[in-house]
């Protein structure tokens, strides 16, 4: 596998369950060593996509190549070259830390000469030194998840699929988990990680936003913030708020206006009013307004707008 070839490539990837289309013609290319965040509401198709890429589900249409192997025709090769953490915790709770590691080392054929070092690495990575003989079910969430990651990378796979690895884990442990992800990425491991925590999206090189089976947006967090909003976001303090909102919604060039506290956030598209015109425009309609301040959109703003926009355009069946 050369660096030029993507580590993960999906083309028109589709999965139907009966008449329900869980994933709809998804195209995605992930470069070697990239951390891509998979974001979307529950039921958007994140897990289904990841399972197809792990050769756990057979695509209904389209194709996917992972680590150079086709997920349909070379499923076993794919499995040998990936690490996978499913959404549900999937280590053996009635086995100890050391026993779980030994089991997965056996399953993945980790060479005996390397096993000792990798076991130590996994244990220190998970912060479980001295607790090797604890039953896994007695561990708290963060330790469990880090150990699961340690087991999933015992065979040093070039590609990692992590399905909501931090859900239900306390914030401190979540941050530690992301540090581990970046340590692995620094060693050129390619990682696709799904999450529903917006702040975690910021840790990714690129974000793939998926909604109702479709890839809605793809780009780095700053790219998404800049482009996907489709305009400039400004905030202005004004009174009375209700009249301001009503006036702005009908104003030329205003894509969206919403009240945030004592201010109004206005999304300006090109070709209409400029930010500087807003106080005058409002004054003419009996609303007092301060100077409009440009503000940075949060990723949440972007996602809400993208998903809400899609919902308006094509209501869910």
């Amino acid at each position, binding site marked *: 596998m050369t660096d030029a070839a993507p580590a993960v490539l999906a083309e028109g990837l589709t999965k139907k369950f009966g008449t329900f289309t869980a994933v709809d013609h998804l195209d995605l290319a992930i470069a070697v060593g990239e951390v891509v965040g998979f974001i979307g509401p529950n039921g958007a198709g994140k897990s289904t996509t990841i399972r197809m890429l792990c050769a756990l589900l057979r695509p209904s249409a389209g194709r996917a190549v992972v680590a150079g192997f086709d997920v349909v025709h070379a499923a076993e090769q794919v499995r040998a070259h990936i690490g996978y953490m499913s959404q549900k915790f999937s280590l*053996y709770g009635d086995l100890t830390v050391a026993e779980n590691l030994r089991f997965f080392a*056996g399953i993945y*054929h980790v060479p005996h000469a390397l096993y000792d070092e990798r076991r130590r690495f996994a244990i220190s990575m998970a912060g479980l030194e001295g607790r090797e003989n604890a039953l896994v079910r007695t561990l708290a969430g963060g330790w469990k998840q880090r150990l699961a990651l340690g087991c999933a990378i015992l065979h040093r796979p070039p590609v990692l699929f992590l399905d909501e690895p931090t859900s239900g884990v306390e914030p401190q442990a979540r941050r530690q988990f992301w540090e581990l992800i970046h340590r692995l990425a620094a060693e050129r491991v390619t990682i696709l990680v799904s999450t529903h925590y917006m702040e975690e999206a910021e840790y990714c090189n690129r974000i793939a936003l998926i909604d109702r089976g479709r890839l809605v947006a793809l780009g780095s967090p700053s790219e998404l913030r800049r482009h996907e909003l489709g305009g400039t976001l400004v905030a202005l303090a004004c009174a009375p708020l209700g009249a301001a909102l009503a006036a702005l919604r009908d104003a030329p060039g205003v894509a969206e206006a919403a009240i945030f506290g004592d201010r109004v956030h206005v999304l300006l598209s090109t070709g209409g009013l400029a930010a500087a015109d807003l106080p005058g425009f409002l004054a003419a309609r009996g609303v007092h307004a301060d100077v409009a301040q440009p503000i940075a959109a949060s990723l949440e703003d972007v996602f809400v707008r993208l998903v809400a926009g899609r919902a308006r355009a094509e209501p869910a069946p």
Partner: protein
Amino acid sequence: MSLRRILALAFKEMLQVWRDPRSLAIALLMPLMQMVMLGYGVSLDIRHVPLCVFDQENSQASRAVVERFVASGWFAITAALDSNRAVSRAMDRASCIGAVVIPADFSRQLASTGTGPLQIVFDATDTNTTNIAMGYAQGVVALVTADLDARWTAARGIRPSGVGVVDLEPEVWFNEGLESRYFIIPGVVAVILALVGAQLTSLTVAREWERGTMEQLVSTPVTPFEVMAGKLLPYFLIGVIDAAFCLLAAIYWFGVPFRGSAGTLLLTTALFIVVVLAIGYLISVRVRSQLGASQVALLVTMLPTTLLSGYTFPIDQMPAPIRFLSLLVYPRYFVTILRAVFLKGSGLVELIGPVLGLVLYAVVVLWLAARAFRKRLD
């Protein structure tokens, strides 16, 4: 195929079984309990059949008849009655299942015509018991007749002529005491192993699907055959221990004579355990919930095994279509094998038919199970 992966799986499975002492205890003690219950509960021998007597004559001759019934050991006289109505009441209350009625002129008729009329009434609600009891009664009456005959000839100073008398000397082989226990207990061992074995493995795959660990396992390069081998290995050990318990109980507790070779017994038992574990595993692979798998395992093993394995109901006497169906009931092969090894001391050569039946079964079921295991979630 990777031996390392198989061993990793087997070791993991063994640890899980070991860490679940309740299930382990059930797996090891259940067969012993069933052995005791079925071993004592199922018997085709009938002893001490409760019998009433309505002796209208109460003579020396009539009392001699009653004594013969008691002395046989097959009957117990529960009441001496004095009217036909009392007989019918006793039968209604089921305080006896048969009544011997001796008419008031028993001795007189015997003396004048040479034939003593004797009536036996049976409650035939349980036809099986009644048939056996009637057989016993005929045996007793034959003895009574022989007694009378001997007394009659002796009284007249005539030596028995021997003319026209065929003397049958029955010689019973393999189960000389005609103990139905000897015939049934080996069958019971087969039935218990069939039921317990399928239960043992019916949960093993379903449990991993339910707990979510299977999704992790199938995302690795492990092969269906490796999963099967790794999972069957620990349960094979438990199955062998169970079998040893049952067989030792059959020999030393129930006293069934063991005339075969330990090697034949070991080999055929191991083969049978593979078959029953593979059946349970196949069910576990197909039914991905523990409750469902356990119920399916019970359903597909319990009825065919108890009804069509021939352990109590003889296959030879079933209608042809059912007999044909019983060929699919794998425990029947092991019932045949165990009986032959225990009572006849048969070896592998004599048992080639049922042994091949089990081998074929093992191969087909293992193949189906390995094929049924899907490494995909859809």
